[in-house]
């Protein structure tokens, strides 16, 4: 998934706050109709909210709260066909917006689970919610994780799923940009905790942060929303590199070169530390070979039994 155009505006702890305030101010509220409007006329709202500079400084936190919505990003987003009032209270059409609307919150899960086709979607939002509750973003005590919500990563006014046909490298880039918009340390070569990772840049270009920082999803959904803490994340190269021959090839050759350069030929021949589990795995050959071996054993057993019968016959004839 990607979150177009959002990372440039949502940075640091601001995304959560910005999203929160945006919803509060623009009408967080009871009208969770969730229906797709046939004719969408959001011009009334966008007249103000499309201004790129529409923002204010929150007196409590001192953070700048961005209230702007990019109309193009909105129209191309997953929610592009919705009217503002499908999610937000219709009362927002009055300005100044009524103060009571501040108290309301907006629930992604509730709305998405009410959709008719909810059970046919790749993602069940109830599952996402359960996974998120166990995510490091929800369980961490870190002050920057306070108030973390769906909108911290998924800007509801710009988010859309990636589609088949898009370049994978671009999808990976956009996906990782969401993480990197907060995780600044990862971008600093001196402080990056991924220093142990061989060919770091190549990994970052081709692998999503999520690929290592989520468990394999048990719910059958493409990606788990249970983001793992660094210490719980996958550091075992083999988990990915034994499943795909090309990756395996690269990993093994890389480790072999390291082995030869640091330990020499003899050590390489005896210890071969580059070898990874699953290198020679081929389910087809395994099954075929074990079947042939099994059949051979049966045939040999039958042959032996036939010989035994012949031997007994001979004994009887002699007796």
């Amino acid at each position, binding site marked *: 998934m990607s979150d177009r155009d959002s990372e440039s505006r949502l940075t640091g702890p601001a995304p959560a706050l910005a999203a929160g305030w945006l919803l509060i101010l623009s009408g967080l509220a009871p009208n969770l109709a969730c229906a797709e409007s046939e004719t969408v006329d959001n011009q009334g709202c966008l007249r103000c909210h499309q201004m790129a500079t529409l923002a204010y400084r929150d007196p409590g936190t001192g953070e700048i709260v961005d209230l702007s919505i990019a109309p193009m990003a909105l129209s191309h987003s997953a929610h592009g066909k919705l009217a503002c009032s499908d999610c937000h209270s219709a009362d927002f059409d009055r300005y100044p917006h009524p103060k009571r609307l501040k108290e309301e919150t907006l629930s992604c899960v509730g709305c998405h689970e009410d959709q008719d086709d909810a059970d046919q979607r790749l993602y069940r939002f109830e599952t996402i919610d359960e996974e998120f509750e166990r995510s490091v973003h929800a369980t961490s005590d870190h002050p920057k994780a306070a108030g973390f919500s769906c909108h911290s990563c998924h800007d509801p006014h710009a988010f859309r799923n990636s589609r088949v046909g898009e370049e994978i490298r671009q999808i990976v880039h956009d996906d990782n940009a969401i993480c990197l918009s907060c995780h600044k340390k990862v971008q600093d070569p001196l402080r990056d905790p991924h220093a142990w990772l061989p060919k770091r840049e190549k990994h970052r270009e081709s692998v999503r942060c999520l690929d290592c920082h989520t468990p394999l999803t048990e719910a059958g959904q493409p990606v788990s929303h249970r983001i793992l803490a660094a210490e719980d994340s996958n550091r075992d190269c083999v988990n990915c590199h034994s499943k795909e*021959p*090309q990756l*395996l*090839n690269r990993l*093994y*050759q890389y480790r*072999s*070169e390291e082995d*030869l350069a640091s330990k020499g030929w003899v050590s*390489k*021949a*005896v*210890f*071969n*530390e580059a*070898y990874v*589990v*699953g*290198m*020679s*795995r*081929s389910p087809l*050959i395994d099954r075929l*070979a074990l079947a*042939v*071996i099994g059949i*051979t*054993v049966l045939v*040999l057993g039958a*042959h*032996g039994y*036939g*010989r035994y*019968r*012949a*031997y007994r*016959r*001979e004994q009887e004839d002699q007796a």
Partner: protein
Amino acid sequence: MSQLYLYPLWVRVWHWVNAAIFLVLMYTGASMHFNGAGWLMEFQTAITVHNTAGILLTVGWIGFILGNLTTSNGRHYHVQLKGFIGRLTAQSLYYGYGIFRNAPHPFHPSAEAKLNTLQQITYIGVMYLLMPLLVLSGWAFLFSVYLPETLFGIGSVWVVAIAHLTLAYLLVLFLLVHLYVITTGETPMTNMKAMLSGWHRDSHQDTEA
């Protein structure tokens, strides 16, 4: 009762050392390939033992080839084309049919030819084709960095790994058949005893090695 000295000491030593190494390679190879199952050897230990045994197998194979080149044992692997098909058919018919009818063995081992035609082509296939390919693929696995990046358009490590695996399965299959076929002598233990003592003993001459 006839006695023939068919297996000189070096052949017997090579045979049993090779057999022991092969069993170790099978167990450690399975431990690497199917790592995770309970009855297998610890992964890193299996790698070290497998590689060491592989080096010994290579040395043993070279020794076997040199032995066959420099002693008379090599003649048992020279195929006599004259009457080849007839001998092969007779031997196959015996194993497939005659053996259940207590038919006489179609082959009589001698100092000149200890292997029947079926055995001969099997052992040639195993020792002069499968075994060197297995050994080569093992070494190619270890020093794959010196191989081209791709072989036949596929990542070379994968080609080597799958070749090594397939050859290993074929040789396991050979071992099973070999273990069975050696029981088809005059008594089930006749051939086993011969490979231990070197002497092929028979109450009548119509037996085989």
